[in-house]
């Protein structure tokens, strides 16, 4: 029994939400569908906890691997597994979804059942994309992620939701199509070199003879798709629209996890597959990242709408992550920057997720997001004030919160790469303080003069159930980062050291011996 | 009786049917020409079946006739409806499907 669970745990966490989504959609009463949805997502979370505890931190190999031949003739396999890189993100996804579902508990939004099932389908898409090690499956889940989001924004969104959601989808689809073309070229290059067709990532990593020009085209195609998702500077215009129009839970998931898909994509696909192109384009990406940071911060400072402000702050924070992941010195990625990038992804997920929840709360109570409407509500809503303060400090990157650890490591790595870039990026830290505190100032502090603000009620018990863990997590991640980083250290070290000839092994520590994965030797790495 | 004769007869009928469809302004005539074309096909079927000494051809004719019946019935019903709606069944007047 134990072996069976271990061997198919990853598939469970992928498809369980899907099944629950269907059940929730067709359940007789709304209450029942809410319980089913929440139950399903909690079970998924527990399953991911199981993975967390059984994850062997010392090996950088792929664990909990499941391989089933899907289209042997085309060489497409259902290959899923967990390693240091995607473990934390999977945990984040499975943690955020129950919170979102709880937040929807009392919401009087129309068509609640389809909304819940769409969220669960979204979860399936995200986890699937994270753990898929086969280009085709990754692409499939990449698109599966997109569709529910389209509906969530399109149906339950704000005023001009149609414009926002079409723009969001068009942007992402355009990017992913380019990625598909690049994937196919890669597939063919692999065939020429190795003689057999395979789309599994383990084999694609083994491609050596790829001309620099092809490599750079492919790298550009892949990174464009991910850059749009991240959103890197020039491709970011969809994000503010998508966020202002998306409902609270939609924008939490969008900011919490969907944006990380882009950066994760860089780490998983763009960097290891095309190391030489990375060396060539890393300065370009670095400058775009830094521009993104400064530009995002300045934009955030200008915003009158709370959600738009937080959206632009995401642009700035993810700019950090991008520059962190493209620091490359004589063929080696700097491990500190990489750890920082991965850690910053998680922090951003938690703190921005919390911020969006909070903005959602005051939106539900006051039906407006314009900052000038608020003032001094910390007298009326103490709990809200504390949570908002903690979330703000988390996103500003005050030492003692997760933000600082992430940003410090990134800036450290970038500084070793080029001091100028380091200094410019660090200005982001200062600007960050300005606009985030500006947010706090206009919402929490100042005289409580408006009538509506006086009648505001504090956070209900339900809201506390998911806000308190988030705030505690922000602090915990600042004080005990090693608890999280230990699990990822081996994989990150492996990626950083041998990025140019990156080989990913498959480990069989407790799952029953996985039959020979075509091409991938099964020796356990150090 | 060489089969070419039957086929050429069928061809002539079919040709008349096509010209009828193309050039007659009146929907009724178009329907009649279609009937003509179908009969040309029937002729080919029958002569083919007798030539090949296999009765399938005749059965096909049976089906073709049924389909022709349906087509005629619905066609005529539409002609009536069109006439009631537009007062005429000259084909120039039905241009609502303009692109």
């Amino acid at each position, binding site marked *: 029994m134990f072996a069976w669970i271990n061997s198919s745990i990853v598939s469970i966490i992928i498809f369980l939400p899907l099944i629950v989504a269907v059940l929730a959609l067709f359940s007789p009463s709304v209450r029942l569908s809410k319980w089913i949805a929440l139950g399903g997502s909690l079970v998924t979370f527990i399953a991911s906890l199981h993975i967390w505890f059984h994850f062997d931190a010392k090996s950088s190999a792929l664990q909990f691997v499941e391989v089933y031949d899907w289209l042997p003739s085309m060489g497409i396999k259902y290959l899923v597994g967990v390693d240091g890189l995607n473990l934390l993100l999977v945990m984040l996804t499975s943690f955020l979804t129950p919170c979102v579902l709880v937040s929807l508990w009392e919401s009087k939004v129309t068509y609640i059942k389809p909304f819940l099932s769409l969220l669960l389908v979204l979860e399936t898409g995200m986890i699937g994309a994270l753990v898929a090690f086969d280009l085709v499956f990754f692409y499939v889940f990449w698109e599966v992620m997109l569709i529910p989001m389209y509906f969530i924004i399109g149906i339950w969104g704000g005023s001009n939701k149609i414009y926002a959601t079409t723009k969001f989808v068009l942007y992402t689809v355009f990017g992913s199509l380019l990625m598909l073309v690049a994937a196919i070229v890669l597939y063919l290059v692999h065939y020429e070199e190795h003689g057999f067709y395979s789309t599994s990532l383990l084999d694609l990593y083994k491609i050596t003879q790829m001309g620099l020009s092809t490599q750079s085209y492919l790298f550009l195609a892949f990174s464009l798709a991910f850059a749009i998702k991240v959103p890197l500077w020039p491709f970011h215009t969809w994000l503010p629209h998508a966020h202002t129009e998306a409902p609270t839970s939609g924008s939490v998931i969008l900011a919490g996890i969907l944006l990380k898909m882009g950066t994760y994509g860089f780490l998983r696909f763009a960097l290891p597959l095309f190391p030489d192109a990375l060396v060539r384009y890393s300065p370009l990406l670095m400058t775009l990242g830094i521009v993104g940071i400064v530009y995002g911060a*300045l934009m955030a400072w200008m915003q009158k709408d709370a959600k738009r402000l937080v959206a632009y702050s995401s642009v700035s924070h993810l700019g950090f992550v991008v520059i962190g992941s493209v620091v490359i010195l004589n063929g080696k990625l700097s491990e500190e920057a990489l750890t920082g990038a991965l850690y910053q992804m998680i922090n951003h997920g938690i703190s921005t997720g919390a911020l969006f929840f909070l903005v959602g709360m005051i939106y539900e109570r006051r039906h407006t997001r314009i900052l000038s409407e608020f003032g001094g509500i910390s007298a009326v809503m103490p709990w809200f004030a504390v949570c908002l303060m903690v979330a703000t400090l988390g996103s500003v990157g005050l*030492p*003692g919160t997760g933000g600082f650890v992430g940003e410090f*490591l990134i800036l450290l790595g970038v500084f*070793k790469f080029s001091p100028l870039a380091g200094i410019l990026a660090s200005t982001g*830290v*200062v600007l960050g303080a300005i606009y985030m*505190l500006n947010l706090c100032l206009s919402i929490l502090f100042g005289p409580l003069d408006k009538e509506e603000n006086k009648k505001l009620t504090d956070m209900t018990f339900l809201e506390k159930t998911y806000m308190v863990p988030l705030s505690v997590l922000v602090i915990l991640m600042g004080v005990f980062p090693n608890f999280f980083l230990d699990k990822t250290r081996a994989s990150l070290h492996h990626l950083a050291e041998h990025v140019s000839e990156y080989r990913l092994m498959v480990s069989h520590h407790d799952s029953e011996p996985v039959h020979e994965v075509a091409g991938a030797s099964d020796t356990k790495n150090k | 009786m060489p089969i070419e004769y039957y086929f050429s007869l069928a061809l002539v009928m079919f040709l008349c049917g096509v010209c009828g469809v*193309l050039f007659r302004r009146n929907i009724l005539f178009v329907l009649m020409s279609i009937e003509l074309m179908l009969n040309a096909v029937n002729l080919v079927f029958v002569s083919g079946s007798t030539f090949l000494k296999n009765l399938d051809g005749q059965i096909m004719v049976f089906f073709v006739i049924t389909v022709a019946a349906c087509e005629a019935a619905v066609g005529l019903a539409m002609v009536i409806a069109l006439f009631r709606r537009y007062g005429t069944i000259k084909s120039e007047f039905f*241009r609502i499907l303009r692109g």
Partner: protein
Amino acid sequence: MLIWLVLLFPLVGAVWNGLLLPRHKLLSHSIAVAGVGLSFLAALPLFVSLLGEGAAGSVHLAFSWIQAGDLDIGMEFVVDRLSGVMLLIVTGIGSLIHIYAGGYMNEEKTTARFFSYLNLFIFMMLLLVLGNNMLVMFIGWEGVGLCSYLLIGYWYTHKPNAVAGMKAFVVNRIGDFGFLIGIFLTYKMFGTLSFSQLHEVLAGQESLSPALTSGLTAIGICLFIGACGKSAQLPLYVWLPDAMAGPTPVSALIHAATMVTAGIYMMTRLHFIYYLAPSALMLVAFVGGATALFAATIALVQNDIKKVLAYSTVSQLGYMVLACGVGAFDAGVFHLLTHACFKALLFLGAGSVIVALHHKQDMQEMGGLKKYLPITHAVFLVAVLAIIGFPGLSGFFSKDEILWRAFSFPGVGWVLWLMGLFAAMCTAFYMVRLLCLTFYGKNRSDEHTRHHLHETSSVMWAPLVVLAFLSIFIGYLGIPPFLAEAFHGSNLFSPFLSSVIQVPPAGEVYWSFLHEHHSEALEWSLMGASTLLALGSASFAFILYRNGPTPFLQERKEAFASVYRTLYNKYWVDELYDRIIVRPLKEMSEFLWRVVDLGIINGGLNVLGQSLMFLSGVTSFQMTGSLHRYAVVFILGLMGLVVLVIV
């Protein structure tokens, strides 16, 4: 083991007050005082253990904080003589201020939140002081900034307080930006951030390679920017005067005794870097001197009692930075110690006055409080005498030491000494002015407040008396050697710190003058000159302001109107910053948002969309709708196809 207690007590106090929010004021007050007091009691034995001759510092590791690649930072704490002294200051004066704060915050409904912030501040300050590597110090550094932000903006219902809080945090953040760059540079050059390792590396250096010196200078300057941010030196001092918006105990604790001294502590902790970067030190010295002089001049004309004290703090900090700048780190720390005592006393005294006058801070409405608040007046008098450097009190010894060390600095030493001297004269003038305007002359406050004037409760004046006692006798710890023989005592303080602060061998050549022996006559003459000048300006001020703002003073003000207005408006520095930095930044981002975001990117996409629409219009023109046209085309097409196939 004791060190964990020292750290844990304030944290526990903060958490208890913060989370449980006890309703009862006395309960929350006692929790807070216990938090700090117990930590002070735990710190005493630690300090005593360090008094012994050979006692070197000890490093304790709590847990490994961040491990990534070859970077391995642990939560390690060092307890040596330097951090011991700072420990005493922080916890000692901290607990006194906590006691006082109980009384001060009496009218507030609930003080739990206030006290939790105070305890949290103490904890952060301890982290800063005890941290063994730059990152732990940085945690404390930003933590303290956060607490000052929270405490300044404690009465957030009043908008300017919140804005002042944010201003403080942002300016501190700019300073921290410099500090961060310094950290990165050290890590890039030395691969480690822990002080002990850095010390060994630098001590091991025989000769100074040019690359090393330039690197060290860069690190020195960046760290100094951090120090400026935190210790309110010239470019980044603007937040301190506004920080007076917070309750007075906060100003006393944070903006007089502890937080602002963090910069000086950091520089003393990293003295081995600065000794090897003489040019960086030169910059530090001049900035210190300039700030001392600049702030003192502004303080001359301020009417708000706390603003005067704020500017005096800035100028005294200037003195300490000046001391560090001339390589006299021990003198800087000694002045830090004495300043902490009498400045805290001044603030708390002012606090009692404000409480008595029901939160009015403008000196024009005070006067003649001598008979209403006798104890406060007595204690206040002692503090004033100490700060102006009246011989025999603590201020005299520490300030003189700095002036002497500045003078003895080869080359530009005398310029610094002049700045320091003039700043001392100004200090004497505005302190006596403050004393007269508040305590002597007729009482100018309105009928209602005068009726309620009464002495503060014992909770408030008891710590004042202790502080007064301290500010009188603490001075004798660091009697300059030439006086020591006269009174056959000995300078206890600097040898005490010398074990920690030594010039690394590579810098021996440059800093050799530190050990030169100077003729005693020179020292005597200098001390005499500075004391005379200070007392002269004090009596001059006393004569002017003896019985409040007289008409004579009024004409003098009109005569020097332009000078008066510039000083009063703080040389318009705030407006200058706003015009140079804040507004252009705002306009640029507005421009960016308007043009780039909406204009270029969105615009580009919309144009793409419209062009597609136009194209589709073009291709749909020949759908005429006539059945026959379709039929003909259909059949012609079919025939063409068949012919094609057959032919």
